[in-house]
């Protein structure tokens, strides 16, 4: 059979299997086994466990459970609430201070936890009731937190970026750095929209919040600094050449766990077990998908599907930007239905040769891909963050939350356009810190 036709068939079968409710990892193994048996014979199944094991045989993957433990430790404490309080007290004089401090807290918490739903939950629990109490429109209060939460997968350290790095054999250090300025740009766009929408709602009283004394401003800082210090320390260790991402993540995990126990007085053994249990669940889930996706990409390559698609795109002679727009539309649509990790692992091996052949930078593309995945997190039908917010603020309808999130989706699309026009936003920092990519 023509590899391209076979590729289309694999695509349709994968979608059908995954949408049937089977877990993503198992679904990928089922599709891989099915096509390998039909086109390569029963003997090809022998290789599956070996490939599965081999895909996990990487020291870089260690950083995934480590960063997850870091995030879980932080999320299990009052760190989110403290961060929110600190920013609110310090940014109180800024117009629209409350929504800005919420978004700032989201960005910082995202950097610390690396998880979108955890960010939404931690900041939203404090931020949304406070914004509603002060009379902010429901759409802005909920939409800003839903969107702010998505920053977790872009701002370093991000598990999504690690997965992309592993899947495409790209430097994780560079990927982390590439996410910094686009992350800050997104926060700025979110803030600009929130201030404009608040101002447009006509209630100028919202722009001025209560004032705090210097004593009140300073007393909250000691509670925030330990975690922020760890994050800065981790990033310094990584870029200062002290240790690899996996090693620094392990130290970060141990420090965050220690801070949670010592400073946040998490003495209860059941709570500590809970952190480990949640981290194990999330890590195993992601690592299982990574290993299964390894088998899936072996199947694609073994049946010459990956190579044929790349060759076919090469012969099309399309404008690279038309190609990039098509890739973006594809990613947005897939991101509506599938979690970022699954999309990256399935799409990266197919898309990367196409992208690099068209002359695009794989580091820059990682940022574009991640922002597309962020859109999926706040768009129906899956939109995990929307449901997290709905869980925090059950009185506000899902429709209101969704409508409130839509302008932030527009901000993300604008960010993608800006990144296309000015790719340096993503590529400048990695090159400045680590030198040009080889």
């Amino acid at each position, binding site marked *: 059979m023509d590899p391209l036709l076979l590729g289309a068939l694999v695509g349709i079968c994968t979608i059908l299997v995954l949408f049937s409710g089977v877990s993503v990892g198992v679904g990928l193994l089922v599709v891989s086994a099915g096509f390998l048996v039909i086109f390569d014979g029963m003997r090809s199944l022998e290789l599956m466990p070996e490939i599965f094991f081999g895909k996990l045989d990487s020291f870089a993957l260690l950083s995934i459970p480590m960063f997850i433990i870091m995030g879980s430790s932080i999320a299990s404490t009052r760190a989110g609430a403290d961060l929110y309080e600190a920013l609110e007290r310090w940014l109180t004089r800024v117009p629209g201070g409350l929504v800005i401090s919420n978004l700032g807290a989201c960005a910082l918490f995202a950097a610390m936890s690396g998880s979108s*739903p955890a960010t939404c939950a931690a900041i939203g629990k404090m931020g949304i009731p406070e914004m509603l109490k002060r009379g902010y429109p429901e759409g802005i209060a909920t939409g800003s937190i839903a969107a702010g939460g998505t920053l977790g997968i872009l701002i370093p350290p991000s598990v999504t970026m690690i997965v992309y790095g592993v899947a495409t054999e790209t430097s994780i250090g560079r990927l982390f750095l590439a996410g910094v300025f686009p992350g800050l740009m997104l926060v700025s766009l979110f803030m600009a929209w929130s201030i404009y929408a608040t101002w447009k709602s006509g209630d100028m009283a919202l722009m001025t919040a209560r004032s705090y004394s210097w004593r009140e401003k300073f007393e909250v800082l000691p509670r925030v600094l330990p975690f922020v210090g760890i994050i800065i320390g981790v990033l310094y260790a990584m870029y200062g050449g002290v240790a690899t991402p996996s*090693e620094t993540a392990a130290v970060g995990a141990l420090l965050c766990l220690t801070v949670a126990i010592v400073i946040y007085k998490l003495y209860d053994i059941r709570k500590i077990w809970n952190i480990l249990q949640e981290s194990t669940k999330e890590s195993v889930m992601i690592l299982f998908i990574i290993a299964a996706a390894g088998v899936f990409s072996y199947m694609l390559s073994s049946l010459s599907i990956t190579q044929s698609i790349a060759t076919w795109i090469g012969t099309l002679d399309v404008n690279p930007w038309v190609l990039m727009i098509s890739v973006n539309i594809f990613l947005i649509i897939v991101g509506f239905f599938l979690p970022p990790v699954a999309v990256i692992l399935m799409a990266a091996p197919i898309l990367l040769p196409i992208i690099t052949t068209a002359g695009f930078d794989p580091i820059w593309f990682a940022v574009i891909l991640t922002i597309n995945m962020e859109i999926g997190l706040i768009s129906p039908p899956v939109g995990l963050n929307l449901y997290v917010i709905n869980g925090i603020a059950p009185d506000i309808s899902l429709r209101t939350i969704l409508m409130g999130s839509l302008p932030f989706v527009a901000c993300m699309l604008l960010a993608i356009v800006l990144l296309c026009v000015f790719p340096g936003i993503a590529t400048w920092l990695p090159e400045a810190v680590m030198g040009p990519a080889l």
Partner: protein
Amino acid sequence: MASHAPSPVQRLKSENIFVRTVQNISSVAGWCSALMILAAVFLTCQMIFIRFVLNGSTVWQTEYVVFLVISATLIGLPFVQFQRGHVNVDLIPLALKGRVRFALAIVTLSLSIAITAIMLFYGYEHWHFAWARGWTSDTVTAVPLWIPYLSLPLGFGLLLLQLIADLVALLIKSETPFGLEA
């Protein structure tokens, strides 16, 4: 809700003895997995301490840490299955109702059982080769590979057991299809 991520609600243990026993085994597997990940954290920190503080050489740690994480992943599979932690997209199940949803749940569980049984069979074969032929890793430490490879049949075996227990729970109606409300 179509789920992107694991459900935050912990699954309750079943009243059926077989299902509950398997769930208990999966919980123990979860403990083992978590402890292996924790051991990997400490081992990596120990490696950094030896290398940067004591200026010593580290030979075995990297390999051991990688094997620990691989084993944690495989041994943790049944626990995550028990906790409904494996991410899935339940768009089609949500669109279906009653018996059709039930039938789809049976089909998806049967598919999962089939592929897990295949992985168990070939995983066991792979482990057995390593054990019978005395395979070792290519590194200085030359770790006997049957030890890390043991996690393949063990992990998929326990996952198979948990999936069968899930199927039993579904058939005796102690659980709803896909854990969704009727």
